[in-house]
């Protein structure tokens, strides 16, 4: 699945709608010295499948907290703070976008961690989470998760 990170060919979408019936999720990370600012983009259509399968009725932020986390390489959890959740869209697909603040435990590196996530992928078998590191205008695809994988080690430069 990490090979997907090498995907390079730009799809020709200018002036067209994006004809893909199964949109994927995107986690955009901005690495800062003391932690990480993140945006979690979740397609509404696929989220609906995932939440329909869940016995728990809860706000999206609570659902996200149950399925998304970060931990140190030795397994100590980071603090995850879900802030604003807003509606957006990406090439015709409605998305929910959550602003997230990730704070490492005292003494832990903010550059060396493990993403632990099965948001949507716990239910939708073809769904993929792409993880992107944003540095100013530049962004790099650093990995992807699809069921049954739910852990992505990240060592930032």
């Amino acid at each position: 699945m990490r090979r997907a990170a090498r995907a390079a060919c730009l799809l020709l979408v200018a002036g067209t709608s994006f004809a893909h019936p199964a949109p994927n999720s995107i986690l955009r990370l901005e690495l800062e010295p003391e932690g990480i600012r993140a945006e979690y983009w979740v397609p509404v259509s696929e989220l609906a499948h995932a939440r329909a399968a869940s016995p728990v009725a809860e706000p999206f932020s609570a659902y996200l907290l149950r399925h998304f986390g970060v931990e140190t390489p030795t397994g100590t959890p980071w603090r995850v703070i879900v802030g604003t959740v807003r509606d957006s869209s990406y090439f015709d697909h409605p998305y929910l976008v959550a602003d997230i603040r990730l704070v490492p435990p005292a003494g832990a590196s903010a550059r060396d961690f493990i993403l632990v996530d099965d948001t949507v992928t716990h239910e939708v078998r073809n769904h993929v989470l792409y993880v992107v590191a944003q540095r100013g205008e530049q962004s790099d695809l650093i990995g992807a998760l699809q069921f049954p994988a739910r852990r992505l080690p990240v060592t930032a430069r």
Partner: protein
Amino acid sequence: MLNRTIVTLLGLIAASTCAHGHSATTQTPPCQAADTPGGARDIAAALDKLRPLLSDAQRAALYRPLSDASAIQWSNLPVGIVPREGLRLGDLDSRQSQAAAAVFDAALSACGSLLLQQVRLADDYLLPLDKRRIGWDGGNYYLSVLGDASAKGPWLLQIGGHHLAYNFAFNTREPGATPMFVGSEPIRFEIRGSLVEPLQAQSAAMSRVAAAIASRPEARLSGTFTDVVKGVIVTSEPGKPPTGGTDTGFPHTYPTGEVDRGVKVGTLPVEQRELVRTAIASFVQLPDPGISASLLVAYLEPDALADTYVGFAGSPDLGTQGSYVRIDGPRVWIELVVQRAIALPGQLHYHALWRDKHADYGGEVRR
């Protein structure tokens, strides 16, 4: 002797597969002609007849180097979204089209050739119905030769467009007929006076398997399926257009163990095992037997078939969005999913994928 046995076996299975109900649709012919061996030599000969009919630019499009990167450049997205390289079939004049058809005849069974025609017709059907610049068009299908078809080294024949990707490998580490993607939007349609249902044989065979095992609790796979699981990869990033749409996820990992893989075929009664054989054959019979007969033998070998799992999700009759059937063997991986349609709101469409866990791209692509 072995080849004759393989062809006979394929013929028997093909006859049973293709004989199923086409009363309302175009008749599917038997899936191979016993007197045409097919395979690399015949394809190379047909290519030799096509080559002199092409312009320099067309030859350059048709013949390209084989590399890991060029091999994985197939997709199941329309060409307006994922552009294809290769010789565009819609640009060929009548002599060139005839010569290209001879290549298809050498590379495909009658069922495989018919499917190519019908999938292209489906795109023609969508063209006037969806004016977005997505690339619906039966002309937007391509023929490519990666590597040197006249030499002893490995080479790939690719035939593909929006809803079809044939990837046949020759002189490779393993005989290779995969990855093979086939899809259909709409599922059935009337065009030029004929009712067409491109994946009738495959969907009916997979549906019969699902219906047969539906009463077994372990047959129902966990989770929801909105597409095939081992398909092409579209990478998205907010603020930027999607990228990829090709087989950048290759090589894939596959389920192991016995949990959540469906029912083991070895536990099924004989008549249900036969349904699985027929479903596998409905895909494996699409290439010419010279390409895929040995694969069919490997998949249906008694121990391999007994160790194959079949599972489903959604409705066994494949009548609802999210219905899904999967065959997961020691080598063979076949999945078919029912999705919502893109061009025709409210309708459904099929995506189906055949992979070989050992021999995608003939085992030649090592990423």
